[in-house]
């Protein structure tokens, strides 16, 4: 299986062109303050700054055109290394690279390129605006990739859907001693319950009704306990099943403190049956039952905040998560698994729906990220002991329009509707922030 690698990420919207990263790089790599010698180059003008930096390509052209074998991609770190003893200074690599990622350092007479400072890039901490990040999520993919995949190959999701990622990662992490419940929704639609009498998983899986998922799973867990077998009872349910008709059994199981991990994949509607609204569909969104026409302009009610309702059950663990923040999601999964051994653990994952939300298939993770960056979605976790706290606080959120314009289901919104949504975002953020402050102060706990 291929390896994932750490990478330096650049957010142009946060860069003001100050050049501190270039000074840090020049100092680290050349011992001078000469920014022309920096391996990272901020380019552009008029407040629009861009980046010239080695992308450590998977299919590096600089390596391909090097006649001396002086450049090579390191299989472990992913970094394209330069071997001075082999380099003949011919500069052909600079013709091969379309990204200006390897260039002549005139002072040394050799080419120079970013080597990520062996995994602790000097430029990143030097950036005062958070425009540079060193993304280390790769280790998750590599680690998880080595564990057994407990889903059948070839799940039938829509193109660009992140739910397959979520399903495979979650089950790999939870492990083989699991009984899985997948009520009607996209997850069984993608193949968890299998075909032709064979399951789509390598663990026992069942297909409860929308209404009784948590109740059935609770019974199964108790029976296993009774016969002395340690299993994780896991549900992967949609928002419709969890927040609408399935809510009474979910609420009941949470109230009784049943030992299970209940994961909701929230794509804000009944997407697999033709995109009908659910109580998690946000205000203003188009669905097939909240159409856009002369008299109606999308959904007229606000979404129910299911994870906060779960907090009010004082579950052993409640968290929100996003596939745009996998490290965060993973940490929460670990804590939820632990909590499910003694009580009810609830993880609510936001899952942009390429088909129902109407955005290009390659933008799923980007849409998920924008939801967080605008505070439309907030990432937090709660335990009765520690209260609620943000795991990825966004102090300076982007305007919600940055999120809304990323997809078609909000295209029809008028000014007043956008204002309503922005107001709700602020109101929600304040509400959760107050809970968080109280959590911090120990009032809630």
């Amino acid at each position, binding site marked *: 299986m291929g390896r994932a690698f750490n990478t330096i990420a650049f957010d142009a919207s946060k860069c003001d062109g100050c050049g501190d990263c270039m000074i840090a790089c020049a100092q680290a790599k050349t011992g001078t303050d000469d920014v022309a010698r920096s391996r990272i180059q901020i380019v552009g003008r008029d407040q629009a700054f*861009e980046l*010239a930096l080695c992308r450590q390509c998977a299919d590096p052209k600089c390596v*391909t055109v090097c006649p001396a*074998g002086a450049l090579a991609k390191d299989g472990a770190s992913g970094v394209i290394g330069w071997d001075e003893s082999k380099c003949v200074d011919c*500069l052909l690599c600079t*013709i091969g690279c379309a990204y200006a990622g390897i260039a002549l350092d005139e002072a040394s007479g050799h080419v120079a390129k970013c080597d990520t400072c062996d995994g602790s890039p000097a430029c990143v901490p030097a950036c005062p605006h958070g425009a540079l990040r060193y993304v280390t999520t790769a280790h998750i993919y590599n680690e998880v990739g080595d564990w057994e995949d407990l889903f059948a190959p070839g799940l039938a999701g829509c193109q660009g859907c992140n739910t397959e990622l979520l399903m495979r990662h979650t089950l790999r992490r939870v492990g083989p001693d699991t009984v899985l419940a997948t009520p009607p929704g996209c997850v069984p639609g993608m193949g968890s319950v299998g075909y032709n009498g064979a399951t789509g998983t390598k663990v026992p899986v069942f297909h409860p009704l929308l209404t009784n998922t948590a109740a059935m799973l609770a019974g199964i867990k108790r029976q296993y306990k009774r016969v002395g077998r340690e299993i994780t009872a896991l549900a992967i349910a949609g928002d419709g099943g969890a927040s609408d008709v399935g809510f009474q059994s979910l609420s009941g199981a949470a109230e009784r403190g049943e030992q299970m991990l209940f994961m909701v994949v929230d794509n804000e509607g009944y997407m697999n049956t033709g995109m009908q609204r659910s109580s998690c569909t946000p205000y203003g969104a188009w669905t097939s039952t909240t159409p856009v026409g002369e008299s109606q302009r999308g959904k007229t009610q606000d979404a129910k905040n299911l994870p906060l309702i779960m907090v009010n059950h004082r579950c052993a663990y409640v968290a929100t998560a996003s596939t745009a923040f996998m490290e965060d999601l993973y940490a929460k999964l670990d804590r939820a698994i632990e909590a499910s051994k003694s009580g009810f653990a609830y993880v609510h994952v936001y899952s942009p729906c390429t088909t129902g939300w109407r955005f290009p298939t390659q933008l799923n993770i980007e849409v998920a990220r924008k939801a967080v960056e605008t505070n439309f979605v907030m990432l937090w976790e709660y335990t009765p002991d520690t209260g609620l706290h943000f795991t990825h606080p966004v102090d300076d959120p982007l305007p919600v329009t940055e999120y809304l314009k990323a997809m078609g289901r909000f295209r029809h919104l008028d000014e007043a509707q956008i204002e309503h949504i922005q107001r709700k975002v602020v109101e929600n953020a304040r509400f959760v922030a107050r809970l968080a402050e109280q959590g911090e102060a120990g009032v809630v706990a």
Partner: protein
Amino acid sequence: MEHTRYLIAGSSHAALEAITAIRMHDAEGTITVVTRDAHLPYSPTVLPYVVSGKSAPEQIFLRDDDFFARNRVAYRPNAALVGLDAAANVARLADGTALGFDKLLLATGATPVIPPIPGIDAVDYHVLRTLDDALRLREAAPRARRAVVLGAGLVGMHAAENLVKAGASVTIVEMSERLTSGYFDAIAAGMIERAFTDHGATIRTGSRVVRLERTEAGSRLTLADGSELDADLLLVATGVRPDLAYLAGSGVDHDKGILVDDAMRTSRADVWAAGDCAQARGFFGDDKIMNAILPDAAAQGRIAGMAMAEDPGLRDYAGGVPLNTYHFFGRHAISVGRAAVPEGGEERVRHDPQSGRYVRAVFDGDGRLTGMFGVNEFFDGGVMAQLIVRRMDLSAERERLFANPLAVGRELMSRTWR
């Protein structure tokens, strides 16, 4: 008869890229590489540095045995292709064996052209294309007192510099009026010439050798104007061309090189060609051209490999763009695109004799970049090549790009394709 799914003749840039491309899509199909060379793969481009001693010969190999083992490639050195039956899909090798194939890639590169000068067969001379050539020249260079290099292309110039540095008195004889023609204009060529003459070399452009004779020390050259030159080391670097004798009777169409379409396929359905031996569409016009440079050999090899493996990601060849970099006496020259000014287009030239910095930018009538050339002025050749291949209208940026190709090129890159 032995059979392989993919047969690749040649073991240099085009061949290596094809292997990678095939394995990207077909993990199983058998691959056999037959090559005339005795060594592991290396680049002809590195050879001047082997001659100068900068590159240790055992350090230049681009792949090791482990690479072939990992990719399950049968690598056969000393196994030149000598004949091809394209109807029966059978290749004949120098050792007499016949090898059946489903698909064949011809990546046999080029060989030095030996000009038909009377007497040339009677004298000893060097060429520079293979590692063995380079080792011979490296051995001979320190003993040379009076060296003559025929041809002032990049190969000849590289070798001439080596010989100058080895202490010989060097004369470069070039038939055309300009050295490194095709890549640099008169000003840039003049700068290169000056660097050589400053280091004691003699350059005789517009000169033709009419006779060669063997002498005690080596050879004597007679030029068209009647003058004579004595040499104890003679290097012939008057260009390259593919040696396509193995195509005789095969039905594979060829002109100067093997004619290929935009997927590097030849006139025979199961035969592809890539690199210096291929003649493919040029970027600036529909004619098929010889673009014998390393980056193009790699690009063509990649395309051929994808086409052979039927990789659906295959995209048509963009057309060959001349690209080169040239390092001489501590200076560097970069040339991207076509030197000629297209009709209705314009050139901008900036030359500071003091600093030795020189830039020339060529645009067509629609404001699109067609060439960027620099001496001692660094810019990102890969970015310029993209600006050309993308045919971007740069009318609004022309002045700024010319004034600062490095920064403005990067800015355009970031904005357009980052």
